[in-house]
């Protein structure tokens, strides 16, 4: 069979395993089946290089590649950077010992698996099956790769008719393409047809996604809730559920769903990061710190690795120390260790400056005033220098972090200028805009402004109705999102003062109000809040 018309003669193979003997064994088996073009590399980095030079048809990758990337991280990066064609068959070799999580439920799932130990016949059978499959659905994959979704849909419909054995495969792709081209009713019909035969998870998820896109949140919730109750390994179920909570404005709900998701599958950097951000918005600083730490650890060797992972973590440690005080010296040491590592690892003037920013705050929080001040001065001069050389390309993170550092050091006005410019430069970056509004003393982004208008309207309404308790809750929760916002601070104090006029004066609340006012500082007479500020100050 191998000699004359081997189906593998013209295919290009790549084998990745850190055991040379294993590579040799696979190579020998492939040779025996008529394969000729076989490359071998021993780690993930070399594999990336090989794939950027050559388009492979079949890749055998061991999950465990020793130090560095594992086979799954490699696959994610290859697909993300489009270093492999969509028709390339990725075969993951796994030892039972490493199969602690369900590969099949991952976003970037390999095409097939080969469990160790395997013999020649097993390998060749697996290979034959996946090559035939890729050939059969190849036209669909290629249409998708060039962005011709209409053609891909046509080919799927034809495939459902002509290839009964792959009917389910074509149905799955068809539903996906309809979803992607926003034909939600058609997609739902496809998923419903599958579900009428069998309650398959992917079809349930597809249908839930249709409901979500059609803003039918209750129906989506009804499908997803039982899956989550079973700790489904399909991460998309959690993402959708978090999306529903977000649409309903339930930030605590988003956090709870994401916490559930990472407890089932802790290795997802993307989800840990989302969790960290939403926990920050919810002022749950310990949860944010822990999620940033997990994200940092899981990002190692993956395509997500970068200075932000480490700096975000160190910043989150600072936030915890700001609340808990400096007594937890382990926390400080750990963050200092990470910062040292970042400097070494990336050796870049901007990264070094950002490390110094975090470090300055950390030293201030632990009482090392002199060190904090020295670092702050170094940062200020480096920032001026780098900004002079690079302008805006110094990066949004650097600008935001510098503004935050200035605020911590009592230089609100200069910080506000930087934040304003930043909001103007990135009006459409939602994540960044949220962070800008969080740091700022007034809403600067489109979304932040809209939220502020809505809050003010609701707050005024409550005050008019003399519902002071609810007004206090409303403004307190809003301050979780925008802790530096002057208007919110003053409105909260106003609500408290009016509440005390009814309930009677309370020493504790009075002190809290005075602290809030002093955190605002002195307002200049041209501020829109000047009058309110003066009135409140006198009444306290």
């Amino acid at each position, binding site marked *: 069979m191998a000699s004359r018309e081997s189906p593998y003669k013209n295919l290009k193979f790549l084998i990745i395993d850190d055991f040379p003997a*294993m590579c040799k064994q696979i190579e020998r088996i492939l040779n025996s089946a008529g394969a000729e073009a076989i490359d071998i590399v021993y780690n993930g980095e070399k594999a990336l290089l090989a794939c950027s030079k050559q388009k492979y048809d079949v890749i055998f990758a061991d999950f465990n590649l020793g130090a560095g990337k594992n086979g799954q991280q490699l696959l994610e990066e290859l697909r993300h950077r489009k270093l492999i064609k969509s028709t390339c068959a990725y075969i993951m070799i796994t030892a039972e010992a490493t199969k602690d999580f369900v590969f099949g439920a991952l976003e970037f799932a390999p095409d097939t698996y080969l469990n160790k130990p395997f*013999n020649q016949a097993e390998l060749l059978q697996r290979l034959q099956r996946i090559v035939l499959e890729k050939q059969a659905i190849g036209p669909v994959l290629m249409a998708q790769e060039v962005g011709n979704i209409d053609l891909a849909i046509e080919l799927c419909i034809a495939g459902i008719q002509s290839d009964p054995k792959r009917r*389910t495969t074509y149905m799955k792709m068809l539903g996906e393409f309809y979803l992607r081209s926003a034909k939600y009713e058609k997609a739902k019909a496809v998923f419903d047809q599958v579900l009428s035969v069998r309650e398959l998870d992917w079809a349930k998820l597809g249908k839930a996604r249709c409901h979500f896109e059609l803003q039918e949140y209750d129906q989506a919730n009804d499908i997803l809730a039982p899956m989550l109750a079973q700790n489904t390994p399909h991460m998309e179920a959690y993402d959708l559920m978090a999306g529903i909570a977000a649409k309903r404005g339930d930030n605590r709900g988003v956090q709870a769903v994401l916490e559930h998701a990472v407890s089932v599958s802790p290795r997802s950097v993307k989800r840990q990061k989302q969790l960290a951000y939403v926990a920050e918005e919810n002022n749950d600083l310990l949860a944010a710190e822990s999620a940033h730490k997990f994200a940092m650890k899981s990002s190692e060797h993956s395509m997500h690795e970068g200075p932000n992972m480490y700096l975000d973590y160190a910043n989150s440690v600072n936030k915890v120390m700001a609340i808990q005080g400096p007594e937890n010296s382990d926390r400080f040491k750990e963050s200092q260790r990470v910062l040292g590592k970042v400097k070494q690892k990336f050796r870049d003037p901007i990264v070094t400056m950002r490390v110094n920013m975090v470090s300055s705050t950390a030293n201030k929080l632990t009482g090392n005033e002199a060190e904090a001040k020295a670092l702050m001065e170094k940062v200020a001069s480096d920032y001026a220098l780098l900004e002079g050389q690079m302008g805006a390309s110094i990066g949004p993170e650097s600008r935001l972090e510098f503004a935050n550092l200035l605020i911590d050091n009592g230089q609100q006005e200069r910080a506000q200028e930087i934040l304003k410019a930043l909001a103007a430069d990135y009006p459409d970056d939602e994540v960044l805009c949220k962070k800008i509004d969080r740091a700022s003393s007034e809403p600067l982004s489109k979304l932040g402004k809209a939220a502020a208008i809505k809050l003010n309207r609701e707050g005024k309404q409550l005050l008019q109705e003399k519902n002071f308790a609810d007004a206090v809750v409303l403004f307190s929760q809003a301050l979780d999102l925008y802790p530096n916002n002057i208007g919110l601070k003053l409105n909260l104090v106003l609500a408290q003062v009016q509440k005390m006029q009814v309930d009677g004066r309370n020493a504790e609340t009075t002190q809290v109000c005075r602290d809030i006012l002093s955190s605002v500082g002195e307002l200049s007479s041209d501020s829109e809040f000047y009058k309110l500020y003066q009135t409140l100050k006198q009444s306290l």
Partner: protein
Amino acid sequence: MATPDSQNIDFSMLLASAAHDMKNSLGMLLSTLDQMDAVAVDQAQELKGYFSLLRGEASRINNDLIYLLSLYRLQNKQLQANVDEVYLPEFFEDQQLRHAVLLEAFNVSLLIDVADDVLAYFDAELIAGVLNNAIVNAAKYTQSVIRLSATPHEGGVLIEVLDDGPGFPPSMIDENTDYQRGVSFKSGSTNLGLFFSNHIAALHTNEGQQGRIELANNPSGGGIFRLILP
């Protein structure tokens, strides 16, 4: 550290983490064996025999540990059936090839008896574990042949592993068999594999129906392991 409290040791957790460690070591051992086997390709036939013996025993321990860990995860709701459409002819071929070395060592042939278009819905990985236990067991007791068959059954599928050995002892076929009640150390066999199989089968549900296993003897001789999936 806190004062140790020997009265309240959580043994299931301890066992599970010990099993996890052992399984990792065995995985290393097995893959090293493979590397040695690959290097020793031109060595004497005798060496090959030792390799297959080592691999067989290591696999057995490995399987037991997998059963243990799966049951532990099941109890802690960490194990779900990742159900998908499976074509039985292909699935059986996989099992045939997976056990080729073992079957050769026992001088047993594995025959597949299934129509081309039989498909079913189950977690292929978990059910392969169930069949693994049945096939390894059948290989020990059969004379020469093991037959794998699958037929559509009440909207689901009936999978059978038949051998031509002496059949199961009557005590195992009784309704209240050990594997349903729990693992027993009295009989000399812990039945861990059957206990695992029963739980994995039950993990597969559809429209109120639950999967199950049955043991029977063929009137014409030999044991039958039945797996009924809804």
